[in-house]
């Protein structure tokens, strides 16, 4: 009960501070937009090429946008040592992680939803017929990126070369999620759409494993 109420309060704080500054949302939205537009002109895709390359580019854009979003996640808690006041206030430190990863997933999904119509237009891929499955893949993929990314952001925020460390740790760990997400998306957006349930299952298992690890060991990641 305490975990749930603390998570809700902290999530409210994360959303309030972000919607007040719009720092992360603006950066990530602009970044994804630039990548999508740039590649749409660079490849000059026919419909077939778009279906083959588009989903991969979409997930690549999501990965880099996520790394931009995740970098300040714990770093800005260090400015006034607010991480310490949070640790003193909450009875279960997992609430801090849950709120941060919920906020990161929400921001990432929001950016993706804003970009999806543009992706459909620039790459000439109709996303509407498979939208519900596409949203499921985007949710599971983004949750995986946020869960692993939030944990690694907590680790890297305390390190000396923090700006370098997060992408270094993040990219290898997220490779399986991104590869599977891209494969599932390619199959979904194919002329003859198919649902890759194994891939969706893998994404769900990845999310559950990382969430459990965060719940078990998260407290140690926050220690000085």
């Amino acid at each position, binding site marked *: 009960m*305490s975990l749930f*109420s*603390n998570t809700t*309060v*902290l999530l409210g*704080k994360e959303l*309030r*501070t972000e919607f*007040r*500054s719009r720092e992360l949302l603006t950066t990530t939205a602009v970044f994804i937009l630039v990548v999508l537009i740039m590649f749409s002109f660079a490849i000059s895709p026919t419909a077939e090429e778009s279906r083959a390359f588009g989903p991969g580019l979409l997930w690549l854009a999501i990965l880099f946008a996520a790394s931009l979003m995740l970098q300040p996640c714990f770093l800005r808690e260090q*400015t*006034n*040592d*607010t991480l*310490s*006041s*949070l*640790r*003193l*206030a*909450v009875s279960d430190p997992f609430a801090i992680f849950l709120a941060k990863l919920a906020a990161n997933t929400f921001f990432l999904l929001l950016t993706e939803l804003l970009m999806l119509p543009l992706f459909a237009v620039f790459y000439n891929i109709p996303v509407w017929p498979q939208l519900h499955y596409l949203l499921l893949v985007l949710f599971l993929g983004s949750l995986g990126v946020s869960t692993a990314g939030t944990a690694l952001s907590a680790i890297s925020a305390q390190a000396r070369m923090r700006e370098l460390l997060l992408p270094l740790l993040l990219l290898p760990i997220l490779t399986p999620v991104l590869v599977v997400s891209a494969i599932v998306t390619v199959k979904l957006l194919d002329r003859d759409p198919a649902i890759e349930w194994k891939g969706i299952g893998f994404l769900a298992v990845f999310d559950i494993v990382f969430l459990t690890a965060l719940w078990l060991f998260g407290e140690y990641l926050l*220690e*000085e």
Partner: protein
Amino acid sequence: MDGTAPKSSLAPLLLPATGLRFENIDKRYGRLFALRGVTLEISAGECVALAGRNGSGKTTLLRIASRLVRPSAGTLSFPDAAASSAVRPGYVGHTTMVYDELTAEENLALFAHLQHVEQPAARAESLLREVGLYDRRGSLVRTFSRGMRQRIAIARALLHRPSILLLDEPATGLDPLGFAWLVRSLRDLSASGCTIVMSLHGESEISSIATRAVRLDAGKVVEDSKSGASLHSILTFEAA
């Protein structure tokens, strides 16, 4: 002084005091020892001033007492508490420990909610009045002066009515009126039986509240007024 001059006392808001005991505490950061075998017993209701040069281990000791830092060896306990894990000391650190992007009221309400304080909004409002920031409750903390920030930091530490208050150089950045308010508040808190442990640099009006002084040097307790050394000599050691 910025904001409204604080008037009333913070003391009646606190719970019964708890003492704390450090037993053979070591804290290492890599090869560096921040604390070496510190053994110190602080009784409930004592007001202890920690003195010592920069790097002597005062902040580390306070952070261990707040349980923000885990000791490398030794134990911390709260002898008067039914369960040590239930004791949640109030801690004021070097920084404000509140969010610049939130208003004073939002900050206090946030931490009051997290600590499951009864009637969090009312508690936040009452503390804002106590520390003289009620008129600025809707302003972002980033717009506050250093003195106002220190007052909101102290208000945050007192939200859950702690039985132990830990203060790391609490007078930093306060103007004379703010300083006078801090002295008055600490005096009231101490008189109400709250256990206070604070790190200080040199002797000032704040140190007059202290009932005991402990000097740290290179991570060890080297003088304690409880063992006969004069409180004045401990606090003025640095200046000498």
